């Protein structure tokens, strides 16, 4: 990636100066836009929590955070991105796949601001855009490890999965999960259901109920709706395996593991690259290899299951395991 020299152009001069000033004098200012809320205990929360951790680590005088929640309407998000960029923020994180096209429009207008966008591998470099970092959590890896764990835990050989919609990150997670289960024990059956939205907690709860009645003795799922499913799992004493954020707050006794997204290293990398003059154009991933995905295991788990899962983690990290997605 070629370091971007600040263009000495007329229109952008003011912004450039402002940015330069902010850079030299003040803290790095990061803005975050997300489709749900900072307490959704999944996608948005994971990023927010990581940012906060980083802030604790660096100090509030070094890292300033601003955020906009519930930006499910893309044009609204675009307006907010533009606002953040033009009001002196150095890094604007568009934490949702749907924001990409707006970002491609906006980024060229603010060459001194870095943008980050996920889930994607597109940085826009092919179109000459140099200031977008693309990031992608390998949800399939998180799913895979949870799948291994689930296959080890189930006695009935039936696992229930409560998904929001069969697309995007959620789909990636499901695919990885199925692969993990298959690789561990081909006899285990995974029943998959979707509620059709990210927020239908009641339906997610009933889906969990249905899975349990259909014989599942281990449950998993994704999106903010899963709080409903976790409630039911708890009620029935069925173990739950979480993804994205640490879901044990919802029910510590049955959330036996969470494959969490830890964005801190990724954020550190982006900030470092920026300081080194790389404004964007890089693709970053959350993987087990780089510590971006971590699984938190509960003490209640049988040692053998944890071992198998950790082996899977290692295998994914060193590349000895590749995830084979089979058509469903």
């Amino acid at each position, binding site marked *: 990636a070629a370091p971007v020299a600040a263009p000495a152009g007329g229109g952008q001069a003011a912004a450039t100066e402002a940015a330069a000033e902010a850079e030299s004098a003040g803290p790095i200012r990061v803005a975050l836009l997300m489709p749900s809320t900072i307490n959704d205990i999944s996608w948005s929360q994971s990023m927010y929590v990581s940012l906060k951790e980083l802030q604790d680590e660096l100090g509030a005088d070094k890292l300033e955070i601003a955020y906009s929640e519930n930006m499910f309407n893309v044009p609204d998000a675009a307006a907010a991105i533009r606002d953040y960029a033009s009001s002196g923020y150095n890094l604007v994180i568009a934490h949702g796949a749907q924001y990409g096209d707006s970002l491609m429009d906006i980024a060229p207008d603010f060459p001194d601001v870095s943008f980050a966008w996920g889930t994607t591998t597109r940085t826009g470099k092919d179109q000459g855009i140099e200031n977008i970092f693309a990031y992608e959590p390998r949800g399939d890896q998180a799913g895979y490890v949870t799948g291994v764990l689930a296959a080890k835990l189930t006695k009935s050989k039936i696992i229930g999965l409560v998904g929001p919609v*069969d697309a995007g990150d959620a789909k990636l997670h499901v695919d990885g999960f199925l692969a993990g289960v298959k690789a561990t024990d081909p006899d285990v059956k995974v029943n998959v259901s979707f509620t059709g939205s990210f927020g239908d907690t*009641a339906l997610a709860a*009933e889906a969990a109920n249905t899975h349990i009645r259909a014989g599942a003795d281990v449950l998993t799922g994704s999106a903010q709706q899963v709080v409903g499913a976790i409630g039911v799992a708890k009620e029935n004493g069925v173990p739950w395996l979480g993804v994205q954020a640490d879901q044990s707050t919802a029910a510590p006794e049955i959330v036996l593991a969470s494959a969490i997204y830890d964005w801190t290293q990724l954020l550190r990398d982006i900030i470092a690259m920026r300081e080194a003059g790389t404004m964007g154009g890089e693709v970053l991933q959350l993987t087990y290899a780089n510590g971006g995905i971590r699984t938190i295991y509960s003490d209640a788990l049988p040692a053998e299951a944890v071992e198998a899962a950790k082996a899977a983690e290692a295998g994914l990290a060193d590349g000895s395991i590749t995830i084979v997605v089979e058509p469903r």
Partner: protein
Amino acid sequence: MFHEFLSVATLIGIANSGVRLATPYLYAALGEMFGQRSGVLNLGVEGVMLMGAFAAYYTVYIGGDPWLGVLAAIIVGALMGLLMALISVTMQAQQGISGIGLTLFGVGLSSLLLKVLVGSPIGISGFSTWKVPGLNSIPVIGPIFFEHNILVYIAYLLVPVSLYVLYRTTFGLKIRAVGQNPEAADSLGVRVNAVRYGTVMLGSAMAGIAGASLSIGLLNIFQENMTNGLGFIAVALVYFGGWRPLGVLIGALLFSTVNALQLWMQVLGVPIPSDLAVMMPYLLTIVVLAVGGQRIRQPAALTKPYERGE
């Protein structure tokens, strides 16, 4: 796959799910029915449910007994109803829009409170399943009807109670009169607006319990906007049920059983895109009403504020 689908266990499972899923609809729609029978359309059910859900959740979260949580939901629901009545009955605001306002208010406030008072959602221990001793061992019937949490049973008890209140008490008579011909009721000394305050607050209190039945009954947690449109469905079910308790019961059961059915279809791998499966209950509700060709007339004074001497 289909033989599996048609097994007795599955059918019992579907029925059991349907019975439980109908719970919040029953509370909310029966409550809304009272308001509408007296002439007030409260489109704010969604917001009231969320506030009730949060009140119950938070009460239990800070260590209260679940029953205390229900009480909190009732009080908060009734207060939301008071607000609605103030605006729609006393200030005679257009009811469709004031309800949308109330929904926004409830959605926002409950989410704000969660963020400020709790942070990210933390699980609680609400009501747990209580298998009715004796009854739950009846084959088929037992597993369908008698393996739920207590709020589910109460929801069904409210159907006969609503019938009784509506048709056998002086309050019920006033409700029916006020919703059909408020002038006539007024001329006999029935305080029209007082009755409407009563029904709207009663209805909202029930919407509050509907929320509680989710947060401390079914889910044991609160999440922003967790009702996800359920309140609007409840309003629709009042129309579906023709403003009658039994009609509402049938509507709620139909809707939630089909919902349960589609969940089972997905779980058992019936090859149908999940999005289309999720669509089923909504489609069916319309189809049933269209085919059933309803001739029921709505309460004559519905959505019409009352002012003496007009």
